[in-house]
C-alpha cells in the first residue's frame, strides 16, 4: 500500500465526514423553519412541504457530491495509475 | 471511471419509449375516462337542472290554475250570496207588504165591523132607551105627569121672548092640549096663570088628545109651545146616534 492509496482513503473519509456536517446543519435549519411555517399556517402545509423537499434535495446534493468524490478517490483514482 | 455510452443511449431510448407507451396506455385513457365522467356528471347536473326547472314551471302552472279555480269559486260564491240576499230581501219586502196589506185590510174590516156594530148597538140602545122611557112613563100616573108638564109649560111661557108673548096675548084663542083630560080646578088655575102672564085677552080652550103621550101643547095662532115626553123622545131618537164627542167618550170608556 503506497502513499497515494493511503492519501486517497484518508481523503475519501474526510470528504464524506466533513461534507456531511454542512448539509446536516443546513437541513436541520430548513426543517425547523418549515415546521415553524406549518405551525403558523397549517393550510399552507402542502406548499411548504413540497418546497421543503426540493430544498432538502438541493442541500443533500452537496453531501452527495462529497460521496461521489470519495467514491472516485476509492475506485477511480486517476493518480493510482 | 468509465461511462458505457451504449447503455446511456439505450436507456435514453428506453425512457422515451416508456413515455410514449405510458402516454398511450395509461395517461390518455385515464384522463379520457375522467373527462367522460366529468362530462357525464355535468350532463346529469344539466339534466337535473332542466328537470327541476320543468317541475317548477309545472308547479307554478298548477298553482296558477288552482288560484284561478279559487277566484272563480269565490266569484260564484259572491254572486250566489248577492242573489240570495236580493231574493231574501225581495221576499221579505213582499211578505212585509203583504202583511201590511193584510193588516190594513184587517184594520179596515175591523173598523167597518166595529162601525156597523156600533151603529147597530146605538140603534138598539136608542130603541131600548125609548122603550124604557116609554115604559117608565107608563108607570107614572098620567095626571101627575100632566101637571108637572103644565108647570114646565108655565115656565116656558115666562121665558118667551117679548114679541112671541105679545103675539100670544093678542091671540083670540089659545089651545091647550093634554093627553089626559084636565080637572076643572086645574083648568081654572090655568086660566089664572095665563091671565096673570098674558092678560085677560086670550080665550083658553082645553082639548084632550091621547096621542100626546104624557105631554101638553100650547097652540097659539103663530106659536106652538110643546111640553111632552113624546116629543122629547122623538127629539132624542132623531138625535141618535149621539154627537161625536159623546161617542168618543163612550169609546174611551
Amino acid at each position, binding site marked *: 500500500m503506497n502513499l497515494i492509496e493511503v492519501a486517497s482513503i484518508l481523503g475519501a473519509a474526510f470528504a464524506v465526514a466533513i461534507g456531511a456536517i454542512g448539509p446536516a446543519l443546513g437541513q436541520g435549519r430548513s426543517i425547523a423553519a418549515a415546521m415553524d411555517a406549518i405551525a403558523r399556517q397549517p393550510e399552507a402545509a402542502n406548499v411548504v412541504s413540497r418546497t421543503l423537499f*426540493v430544498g432538502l434535495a438541493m442541500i443533500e446534493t452537496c453531501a452527495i*457530491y462529497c460521496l461521489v468524490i470519495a467514491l472516485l478517490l476509492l*475506485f*477511480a483514482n486517476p493518480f493510482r495509475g | *471511471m468509465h461511462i458505457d455510452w451504449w447503455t446511456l443511449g439505450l436507456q435514453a431510448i*428506453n*425512457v*422515451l419509449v416508456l413515455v410514449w407507451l405510458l402516454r398511450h396506455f395509461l395517461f390518455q385513457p385515464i384522463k379520457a375516462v375522467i373527462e367522460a365522467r366529468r362530462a357525464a356528471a355535468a350532463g346529469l347536473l344539466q339534466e337535473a337542472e332542466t328537470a327541476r326547472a320543468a317541475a317548477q314551471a309545472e308547479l307554478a302552472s298548477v298553482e296558477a290554475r288552482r288560484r284561478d279555480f279559487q277566484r272563480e269559486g269565490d266569484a260564484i260564491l259572491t254572486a250566489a250570496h248577492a242573489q240570495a240576499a236580493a231574493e231574501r230581501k225581495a221576499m221579505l219586502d213582499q211578505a212585509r207588504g203583504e202583511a201590511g196589506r193584510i193588516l190594513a185590510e184587517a184594520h179596515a174590516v175591523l173598523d167597518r165591523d166595529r162601525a156597523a156594530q156600533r151603529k147597530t148597538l146605538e140603534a138598539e140602545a136608542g130603541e131600548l132607551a125609548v122603550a124604557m122611557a116609554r115604559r117608565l112613563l107608563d108607570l107614572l100616573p098620567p095626571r101627575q105627569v100632566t101637571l108637572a108638564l103644565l108647570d114646565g109649560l108655565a115656565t116656558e111661557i115666562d121665558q118667551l121672548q117679548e114679541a112671541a108673548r105679545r103675539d100670544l096675548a093678542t091671540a083670540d084663542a089659545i089651545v091647550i092640549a093634554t093627553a089626559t083630560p084636565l080637572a076643572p080646578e086645574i083648568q081654572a088655575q090655568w086660566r089664572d096663570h095665563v091671565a096673570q102672564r098674558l092678560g085677560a085677552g086670550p080665550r083658553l080652550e082645553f082639548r084632550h088628545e091621547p096621542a100626546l103621550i104624557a105631554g101638553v101643547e100650547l097652540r097659539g095662532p103663530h106659536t106652538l109651545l110643546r111640553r111632552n115626553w113624546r116629543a122629547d123622545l122623538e127629539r132624542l131618537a132623531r138625535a141618535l146616534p149621539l154627537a161625536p164627542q159623546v161617542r168618543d167618550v163612550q169609546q174611551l170608556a
Partner: protein
Amino acid sequence: MQSPLETHPAFHLGPLPLSAPVLVTWGLMLALAGGSWLLTRRLALRPGRAQAALELVVETIDQQIRETMRVPAEPYLALIGTFFLFVLTANWSSLVPGIEPPTASIETDAALALIVFVAVIVHGVRVRGWRGYLRNFLYPNILMAPLNILETLTRSFALMVRLFGNVMSGVFVIGIVLSLVGFLVPVPLMALELLTGAVQAYIFSVLAMVFIGGAVEGEPGEARERNDR
C-alpha cells in the same frame, strides 16, 4: 469489491453490448406498459378498485403539476408521470433478489437528466419561441448570461448525480452490510432505501417540473405581467 461507478456489458446481442440496467429497464417497461394496458383495457364510468387507484395516481400527478407549474398539466403529464413512475419502480426493483436498480448505474441517471435537459429546451421554445427562451439567460442582465448557462448545465449534472448518489449509496451500503452480517440487519436499511427511493422519485419529478416550468413561465417580471392581465 466491484466499483459501483462502472457498468459492464452482460452480453452482446450481435454488435450491441447489453448491460444489466438495460435488461432490467426492459423488464420494468414491460411490466408498466403491460399493467397499464391490462388495467386500462376496460375503463368504466363507474370505476372498479384498480381503476380508482389508477385514477387517483394520475389525478395526483396532474394536480402536482398544476400546483407547481401553474399551467395546464396536459402537455407535461405523460413526461413527468413517466419520470415519477419509472424512477419509483426502478428504485423499488431492488426488492427483487438479485436485481440491481437501473437508477444505481450512472448511465441511466445520465439518460434521464439528458431527457430533462432536452425537454426544458423543447418546451421553452415551443411555448415562448427561440427569442423568448434565449431571453431567459439574460435575466436579470446580460452580465449574468454565462452564469445562467453554467447553471443550466450544472443543475442537470446535479440532477443526475443526486439520483445516482442516493440510489447507488443505498445499494452499496446494503451490499456491504449484507457481506458482513447477511441476516435481518439489512432489513431496516432496506426499508430506509424504500423511503429514499420514493422521496427521490418525487424530488426528481418535482425538479423536472420546476425546470420545465421555469423555461415555460419566462422571467419573473414577464410572469407578473401575464398574471396581472
